[in-house]
């Protein structure tokens, strides 16, 4: 029994990182309707920013999170400029190529600038609680807290601020929003930056939780965030969060039931199954399949 509870706990912890990535992703892809494949590399850059803050500047974890946030935000501005500015209306395929291009540059550039070796990220919050045979690490709770706080902040931002409301308007209908006097370009810039920044934070957590950063860490991270966001419904922030946590749980429980080699297969099968049953994802807006 303990075994399954422990698996669940680890799954939720892993899922909370996925969730944060997925929220950033849902922001860009679901709400703004921009296709992106630079995602993994944004996570990597965020992770390295956090790593440098922690290791060389000896700042605390909070400053590291801010550093990841800021670095990814700036990167988000650059990405918008290179990948989207010229083609605000798409098509999807163009964005796909430009973002793949940027992602290639970032990944191989990072290997040149930041080195090819895996780097050690020092531990923060090494303590744990024990409940019977189940061990919950402080860092796991911390990650969940960060997830909750950032989701709540984002939710408030979307609900209460003018920019947030404009964001929602753009997500419904870009043309109509423009007619209502919304500066669509500004919203795209801001929204993309926010999405990237959240990914940056998730990158810092990724580095801290697994004690490592690596120039090529973005590949699988990007794929996972993609899957989580779709699972939860691309258009919904809480959906993405839940999708991320669910993916974490699926993967861990999947290993408990099947061999671990098949765990990504299971994750992708569930993803496809969800898309077939509910194309709009678990919590997505209905009619999203008419994209």
């Amino acid at each position, binding site marked *: 029994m303990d075994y399954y509870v422990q698996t669940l706990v*680890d799954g939720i912890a*892993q899922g909370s990182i996925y969730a944060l990535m997925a929220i950033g992703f849902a922001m860009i892809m679901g709400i703004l309707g921009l296709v992106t494949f630079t995602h993994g590399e944004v996570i990597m850059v965020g992770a390295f920013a956090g790593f440098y803050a922690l290791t060389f500047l000896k700042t605390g974890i909070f400053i590291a999170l801010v550093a990841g946030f800021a670095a990814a935000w700036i990167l988000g501005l650059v990405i918008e400029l290179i990948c989207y500015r010229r083609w605000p209306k798409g098509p999807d395929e163009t964005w796909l190529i430009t973002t793949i291009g940027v992602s290639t540059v970032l990944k191989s550039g990072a290997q040149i600038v930041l080195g*090819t070796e895996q780097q050690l990220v020092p531990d923060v919050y090494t303590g744990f609680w024990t409940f019977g045979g189940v061990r919950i690490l402080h860092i796991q709770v911390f990650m969940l807290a960060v997830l909750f706080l950032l989701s709540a902040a984002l939710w408030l931002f979307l609900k209460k601020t003018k920019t947030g409301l404009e964001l929602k308007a753009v997500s419904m209908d870009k043309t109509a929003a423009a007619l209502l006097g919304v500066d669509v370009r500004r919203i795209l810039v801001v929204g993309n930056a926010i999405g990237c920044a959240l990914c940056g934070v998730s990158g810092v957590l990724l580095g801290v939780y*697994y*004690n*490592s950063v690596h120039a090529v860490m973005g590949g699988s991270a990007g794929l996972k965030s993609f899957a989580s966001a779709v699972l939860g419904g691309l258009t919904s922030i809480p959906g993405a969060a839940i999708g991320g946590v669910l993916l974490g749980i699926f993967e861990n429980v999947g*290993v408990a039931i099947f061999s*671990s080699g098949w765990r990504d297969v299971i994750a992708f099968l569930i993803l496809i199954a969800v898309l077939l049953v509910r194309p709009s994802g678990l919590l997505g807006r209905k009619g999203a399949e008419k994209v």
Partner: protein
Amino acid sequence: MKKTGFMLLAALALLASGAVAFAADTVRIGLSAPITGNYAEYGENFKYSVTMAAEKINAAGGLLGKKVEIVVMDSKGDPKEAALIAQKFVQDSSIAAEIGDFTSTACLAAAPIYERAKMVQLSPTASHPDFAKSGEYMFGIVGTQDAEGPFNVKYIAQEYMALKNVAVIYINNDWGHVTKDRFVKAAEKFNLKVTGEQPFMESEKDYAAILNKLRQANPDGLCVAAMYNEASLIARQIRKMGWNVKLLAPSSVFSAKLIELGGEAVEGIVTNTFFALEDKDPAVQGFIAEFEKVAGRKPNLHAACAYDSMMMLADAIKRANSADRTAIRNALAETKDFSGITGKLTFTKVGDIERKYKVMVVEKGQWVVKKDYTR
């Protein structure tokens, strides 16, 4: 369509101009390694080591009275690129032999091309049992898992660590798979109980679920068949989950990086090696100092093997007294008791090395050699 044609011609001309003949006053050795992509870290080590070796040879007067020149090509660790590089090398008649690639899959994809062109492919790291067998011109010097597996079971797990049962976590690529396979087979032979075996994906960072699963059977020891990068993270996660299992691993974990990344978590991990940083041999110490100067880090096993690869090739060329590809192959195959920094090296009939392993442990943040076996 016509445009395509024009550009084809233009590009071919450009490519050809890059591949024209070179002055014959050098002996050129090709190095195919992942300089970019996911294995860039390992490819970089290759590049540093092989270049260092070449410089050393040149400082000592070169080969056949000529300078050695290394031609580095980036394979990204991709089998297709490795095959293309193979074509480029065999095409260039000034290149005498090739060192590389890093992964066994890349080596195997390139093997038929080298074999057909009768050019040596000497891989510092391919431990796939099929690799050296795949042709007369294929040589591997890291030693195959056929030998390492039994050593790990008999001497490390049973004799040194006194384990009764053991679980295996392995990386899901050809190397990890073979390592696991040979380890489990040897365990059967020597009556070591294997309580579980689980693979993980190369890009995976979260091993908690797999470790929890393996923990269920409560083994005494855990064999971590992974590179040092993953092994250090696995060790950390094991300690975080409060599991007091003894760790052992194949020689791939031997690197200063393991201790740097793993910290206290890798304390006590046992592995085998044929190359030790504390080896008193001046050649080894010289290599280590030199490597640190160039790369800014301590060399690992791959780096040492790459260095030896170049040195062995040079030795073979000297004995052959020719830069002819087939002559090099024949001389290389006859290599006997070559004293490299990774020990005395003799090729088997198929072109592998039979290694002599030592038990090595991490103690107080240092790699410490324990016993010397001749198997």
